[in-house]
């Protein structure tokens, strides 16, 4: 409808610029990860010889594989707990009227903007006293405290969109409150649940501050923190290329997750519930 050629060109050029800005560092890391030995100083974007050497180094090191196991395990546990609790909490916040409801939401929002580094040192001391230092639990707890409020916020917004009648209809049809919640409300809020899950997973997966301050060994150290302890093939060479390879490896699950759930995160699932 009369979009002139010039605006079209403008938009395309803008889009290319932004995509390039975002993707060049990623491609640079990918390219680095395939460079062999001293090839990283070849002053070229692409490797002279494509090599899997860095990937072999990374997977051969216990440091990386145990860290990967820690990251995957803790991220999955934290995400599951966070989403389950957040779903219940968000449902309560959006459906029930109780004194202090606004306060709960306000505090939740305040927590998400609280700087992480501010509680790292106190937690370090506290955890050492309690014996939670350098354990999975010791990391999962602070992860939850940061991801839960955000999830509650996201999910509460989704629950509010679901018409009350859905639930009332289920109750009249003979459902208990729990059945109505599980069989009607949760399926309808699925896009919200997935959004919350992915956000939580990313936050935990990418965490560095807690990972480095609350761990001392391979027992609980996650990948981002482990990368800091990387060594090169020999102790005289910088481990830039293996770190790049490790970075590529830990990015893959995130990309897969997004591609997998992209289609689930679509608004408008409630279309057709009520007369539109």
């Amino acid at each position, binding site marked *: 409808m009369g979009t002139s050629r010039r605006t079209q060109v403008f938009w395309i050029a803008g889009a290319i610029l932004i995509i390039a800005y975002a993707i060049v560092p990623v491609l640079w890391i990918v390219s680095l990860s395939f460079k062999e030995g001293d090839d990283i100083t070849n002053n070229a974007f692409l490797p002279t010889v494509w090599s899997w050497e860095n990937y072999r180094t990374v997977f051969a090191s216990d440091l990386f594989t145990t860290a990967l196991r820690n990251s995957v395990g803790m991220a999955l546990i934290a995400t599951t707990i966070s989403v389950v609790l957040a779903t219940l909490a968000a449902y309560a916040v959006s459906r029930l009227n109780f004194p202090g409801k606004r306060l709960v939401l306000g505090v939740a929002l305040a927590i998400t903007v609280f700087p992480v580094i501010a509680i790292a040192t106190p937690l370090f001391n506290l955890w050492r006293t309690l014996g939670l230092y350098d354990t999975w639990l010791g990391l999962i707890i602070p992860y939850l405290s940061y991801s839960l409020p955000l999830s509650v916020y996201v999910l509460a917004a989704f629950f509010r969109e679901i018409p009350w009648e859905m639930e009332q*209809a289920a*109750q009249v*049809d*003979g459902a208990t409150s729990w059945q109505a919640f599980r069989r009607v409300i949760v399926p309808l809020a699925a896009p919200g649940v997935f959004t919350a899950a992915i956000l939580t997973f990313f936050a935990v997966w990418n965490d560095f501050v807690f990972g480095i301050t609350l761990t001392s060994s391979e027992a609980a150290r996650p990948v981002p923190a482990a990368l800091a302890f990387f060594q090169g093939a020999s102790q005289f060479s910088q481990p830039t290329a293996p770190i790049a390879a490790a970075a590529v490896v830990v990015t893959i699950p995130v990309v897969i997750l997004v591609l997998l759930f992209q289609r689930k995160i679509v608004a408008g*699932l409630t279309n*057709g*519930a*009520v007369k539109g």
Partner: protein
Amino acid sequence: MAAIEMRNIVKEYGDGFKAVNDVSLDIADGEFMILVGPSGCGKSTLLRMIVGLEDITAGDMVIGGDRVNDKAPRDRNLSMVFQNYALYPHLTVFENIAFPLRLQKSISEEEVRRRVQAAADMLELNEHLDRKPANLSGGQRQRVAMGRAIVREVNAFLFDEPLSNLDAKLRGQMRTEISRMQRRLGTTTVYVTHDQTEAMTLGDRVAVLRRGFLQQVASPRELYEQPVNMFVAGFIGSPPMNFLPALVSGGRLRLPFLEIDVPEKAAGKVTDGQLLIAGLRPDHFDDARLLDPARRERGATFRARVDVTEWLGDAQYAYLPFDAGDEVTKQLADLAAELDSEALRTQLVVKIDAMSRMRENHEGEFWADTRRMHLFDPRTGENLTRDEAAAAELAQLEQERLQERTG
């Protein structure tokens, strides 16, 4: 199936507002009861109290002999069709209808299949069983909502303005459909509507509510012919009843256009010089020239200037403006506001034969069937000419009809 009894039901909100006020209503087993009234009259609240979605402040709600005040909706064994249908968008039509059955663990998969199929047959939903609600038309969604309601054997069906989201033609079709379905299943039904036609055609009896108070419960015919007060008279019927100022003077009644004797039924209840409101329905009039002489003698004729005419094919409406005093005009305006209408003009709406050639801005001769006129006390709204004997007869007729149907 069960009878529903309401005894002195009150719904009071936190701020002290009473949405439903001391309503007592008995709905017989198998009866089709309509709750009707202008918006905000408490009809939907009352329905939601029956089903259990709204707490009852005071009074008893008895369904099938059990007091259900403290029972959760799921324990009341009722089914409801919501105004916006409230279908489950993530389930197919089949699963939507099967939902209430699936919640009862004791029903086998085979039985679920059979019953959903039976409901789908009745509502002609067979081709759509695998589709999602989002892909259905408004009428189809409405039928799915009904399917979900009839698939169980419930004590009663509750409808909350189920047809208000459909277009006029479909509304007519679905109205007949609902009526047929209810007659076939014989299940007690409570139906909330603000639509005149639905109220008059569907119900065995109609309960008229106003500001939380029950005004009159009667068959549609009785409401139309023997209303208890001015509110019911003005609410039932479309176009609404004409309200005219009537001044009592020496045994005669002076109305705009007309002067007649005070009707027998009102004699003794009125004093000389009192101002009353006379109610005459549009179909109590006709074009005097096209009238058969035998009928002509039973009423009164008058001449008046026609302002506007509306020709509808099967009928014709003529609008006759008249002057009324300020006080009367104000009273009529108040009443109109309460009835959700905006008939602020003081005019007489008259239904005349479609054949009539009466022209706008010309004078014509009209006939009014003054025997069917009602007189209301303007302060209390009470009907002074209600014929109790005729009303009782109509109620009796209605009772017999219901008994014949429910056996």
